[in-house]
């Protein structure tokens, strides 16, 4: 099993989430985060008099745990639906997961996903 973590644009979340659900990946966890990539941040203004840069930008972090065979499908959905082609589209990280346990029933492994 793998955990797919993705940092994406907040405005792409709905489409990513809906597509994941349509493809059968219902369970997910989402965080509102701030971060910085190679992107330099954005310029905001103070009373129209002065400019300042914000280099930590609000992003969405999304986590899905899936069976090994499904990793590619999830990654493809993310690459397609979170994509705008501009700097700041985010990143995907894939991590190994040792075990998954559903608290209510005690099921483990892929049954618990």
């Amino acid at each position: 099993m793998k955990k797919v973590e993705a940092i994406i644009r907040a405005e792409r979340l709905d489409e990513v989430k809906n597509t994941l659900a349509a493809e059968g990946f219902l369970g997910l966890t989402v965080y509102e985060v701030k971060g910085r990539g190679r992107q330099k941040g954005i310029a905001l203004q103070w009373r129209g008099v002065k400019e300042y840069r914000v280099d930590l930008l609000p992003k969405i972090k999304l986590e899905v745990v899936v069976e090994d065979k499904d990793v590619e499908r999830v990654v493809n959905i993310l690459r397609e639906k979170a994509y705008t082609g501009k700097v700041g589209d985010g990143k995907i990280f894939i991590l190994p997961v040792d075990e998954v346990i559903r608290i209510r029933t005690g099921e483990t492994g892929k049954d618990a996903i």
Partner: protein
Amino acid sequence: MDSGDTAWVLMATALVMVMTPGLGFFYGGMVRQKNAVSIIMQCFLMLMLISVQWVLWGYTLAFGSSFGGVIGGLEWLGLQGVGLNPNPTYAATIPHAAFIMFQAMFAVITPALIVGAFAERVKINTFIIFILLWSTFVYDPVAHWVWGSNGWLRQLGVLDFAGGTVVHVNAGAAALASAFVLRRRIGFGSVAMEPHNIPFVALGTALLWFGWFGFNAGSALTAGLSATNAFMVTNTAAAAAGLTWMLMSWYFRGRPSVLGSMAGVVAGLVAITPAAGFVNHLSAIVIGVGAGFFCYVAVAFRVRRQLDDSLDVWGVHGIGGTWGAIATGIFAEKALGGVDGLLFGRVEQLGIQLIGVAAAWVYSFTVSLLIFKALDIGLGFCVKPEEEDVGLDISQHGEKAYASF
């Protein structure tokens, strides 16, 4: 000149002024976080733009001597020759300038109401041009018809105490036109667009309710019986409409809605506006209940039809204003405002009210439609999709509502 009347109208003017920023909070709470600053700005822009437009050419177009009852003349351009002395045609006991400022606040809030219809997607530069055109070619003429000294609807005997037709039907019709012309928000219908701050909506509603005492009771233009009656029926109708909407949401959706109660209160305030000087407190309850009911149904219809009048300007102001104008023709009584309605044996008043409402609907809808269409083709009314995704706060203003870290 009467010092009591003058003091009251100046106070009432300040009360109406605070409604426009109040509306900014009312709408601001209902949009998503990324657009909160932009919509508050759009409301403040009315205060900044129309306050100047009114002094330069708005007032004379609305209240100057009439060209065929259709539009005011230009003799008061830049308020030349107006002076401070009372104008007996409009308000005999207060300085003319007090009347002008009181009316200015109505001219300010009316286009601000329309903002809710195309929230979260308009370009700020096109928006500014739209407001100037709309105020000049829609608000000023319609205000002239109903309130100008020889306006044709006034001559006909249309009753509109504080602007049910001039303000609310007018704005509601423009809102409907915008929903037909402008594109919907990206993801409308498929993505949940949650109100980002319901306490802000409540704050805005509180400011609107508070300011509406100036709006309606101030429209008596004297401090006395008429103002007091307007005050009483305004409060009563707002409460009755809020209760009605709350109960309907409870019945149809299982729980009493807070956002719905706020919408109901505003619907009641809208509906009592044309009637405030003409009806009694018991009629006000009926008008309030009707407003809650009709506006609830209208909003449900709008949602079913997938029209993106984002914050229900048509459903609340258009329908509430129409109901109020018709109700004025039903419940008006001579003892209060000098005119009897249907209930007191004068059927023709109802007919006159219907003509007034229909004229405002047709004119405002048509001209607004043309303005929206022309600006959308010529300059583009809505922002680019990526600007809308990021939000208007950052894309239009380079500022955001809530910073952190």
